């Protein structure tokens, strides 16, 4: 009958282990199902009045970059993109911007001020954002020559991330890298702000 003495403390062990595991995880890190899958196609109007069909870029390495003019982290990131587009243009890198929850005028003013000669499409109604499982801006999807998403960056890009992935993608001609290299990454400590912020806070009156 000795087992009863041990049953209660022993059954507590998995409970404590579960608590220890669950309480030390960052619940905000959500793995995306998209890396490794074909990039969702879209045909949308660009801010300059043309239209762009993603499938027409099949066979090239494409960075699909979601951004907005109200997004602070996108400011720092934009310069990285301008620089990357310049450095890798000759080797065939294409950049496509997707404007998220923002107006055409804001986006035009942004590009005029900060540069960038790649097409930017307007995602009215966020259908494309939802198709890409977007959590916020900025997020960037690295699409290989075979049209599959190889890497997803959550948060602003930096040169290190660009130089880690782009040469690898450009170097591969046929079906891209083996499945275990599909990945997503997150930049540290960036703060996303919603477009309504901060006026939506209203003010508080205290007696």
């Amino acid at each position, binding site marked *: 009958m000795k087992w009863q003495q041990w049953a209660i403390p022993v059954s507590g062990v998995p409970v404590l282990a579960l608590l220890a595991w669950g309480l030390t995880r960052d619940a905000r890190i959500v793995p995306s199902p998209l890396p490794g899958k074909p990039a969702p196609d879209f045909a949308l109007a660009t801010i300059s009045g043309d239209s762009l069909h993603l499938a027409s870029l099949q066979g090239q390495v494409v960075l699909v970059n979601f951004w907005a003019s109200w997004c602070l982290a996108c400011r720092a990131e934009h310069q990285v993109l301008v620089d990357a587009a310049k450095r890798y243009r000759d080797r065939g890198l294409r950049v496509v911007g997707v404007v998220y929850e923002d107006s055409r005028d804001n986006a035009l003013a942004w590009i005029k001020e900060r540069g960038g000669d790649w097409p930017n499409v307007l995602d009215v109604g966020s259908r494309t954002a939802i198709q890409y499982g977007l*959590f916020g801006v900025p997020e960037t999807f690295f699409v290989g020559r075979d049209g599959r998403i190889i890497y997803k960056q959550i948060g602003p890009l930096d040169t290190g991330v660009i130089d880690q992935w782009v040469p690898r993608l450009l170097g591969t001609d046929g079906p891209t890298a083996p499945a275990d290299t599909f990945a997503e990454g997150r930049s540290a400590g960036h703060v996303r702000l919603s477009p309504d912020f901060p006026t939506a806070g209203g003010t508080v009156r205290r007696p």
Partner: protein
Amino acid sequence: MWLRQPLVVALAWLSFAATASPAQTPLDTGGAPRDARFEATVAEVASSLRCPVCQNNSVEDSPSLLAQDMKKEIRQRLAAGETPDQVRSYFVSRYGEWVLTKPRAAGVNLSVWLLPILALLGGALVVWTAVRRWVRRSASPRPATETAPAADSGDLRARRAALQASLLDLEAEFAAGRLDARDLAALTERDQAELAAVNDALKQLKKDTHAVAPAAPQTATSNPMGVWLGRLGWVAGLAAFALVLVLSLRGSVAARSEGGTITGGTQVASAAPVEMELQQTGPLDSLRIAQLESRVLRDSTDVPALIELGHLYLAQGLLDKATLVDTLAIRLQPDAPATAEAFAHLGMILWSLGQTDGALKALDKALYLSPEFPEALLYRGIIFFAGLQDMRAAAQTFEHYLAVAPPDANTARVRAMLMAARQAASGQQKQ
């Protein structure tokens, strides 16, 4: 066989639980969707999906732009004839299972459903064995009181020997003719009955010593230290367990205060969206606005009314009107402490228009008039944090705000921004 009864109870409980849980609402996709029913299905699907840009809010409950777009997408897909499950699957294929507010009952997730049942069965087993032991102990025949008040096996054995000797004595007395046959029979019967009782008691004692060795009284007297240490260990272990539970669950179990966060105000360093929710504005506000407007029309120098109007206009997003009344108030009483609020409003409006410098000037003026005006501190902190990205100044200002502002709906969010600012500040220093 001993397991049968609790099992039956558990199964009965389970079948009850199964019938009590609501069945999935079926949707007939054929034919024109009846409006109310269709909308109910849209709402049902929307509340089963998480809003990606919120903190633990469903698409149905979130006012954010993306959630509204997601709801549109849900409506379109349902209208196109997809079933609710197909719509959910679409979102899962984009966002992962994370997007479901209720995880699917399959794979590892099943443990969420099965573990409570296992725990229930385990608990039932423990209770059943404990009860069985108690019942057996109390039902065991007690030795006759006058013969063996002590349950000590030494006493019992001595008594047994005495009884056996007494039986032999009776035989001898009878043989010697000092006892008649009737007395012999009566006395022998008495002694034999007691002997049987003593034997039973001895047997029971032997069983019990095997079963619950440490609980037997002789151990208690022979080694009280060990027993007390054991009990102390149990108490300490249970207390530690309870402490872990209370500390880790306190935040999440507490009822959420109005405007509070899911973490119950626990400080979390958050890289997640910092959103200020719209303050509730309702018919009462409109009523108050009408009252104040008529007051101002009668007396255009009524500064308190102008400032309160500014507050209400802002809450409703009427920036132009707010600017007008606040500017009027400032012109009337440029240096009164109460005007600090009008300056704070202006600072907020300027910031929202992208005029960072002007906004900071207005807020500084507000703080000059009223050095601890909470809203001026809050928006100054926000400008440092989100606009100028001066994280040290932001952290200082938020600290000041938290020190002077009474806790309210914004407190948790300001704390989150403060943590993020501190983190970013230490990051900036490292670089």
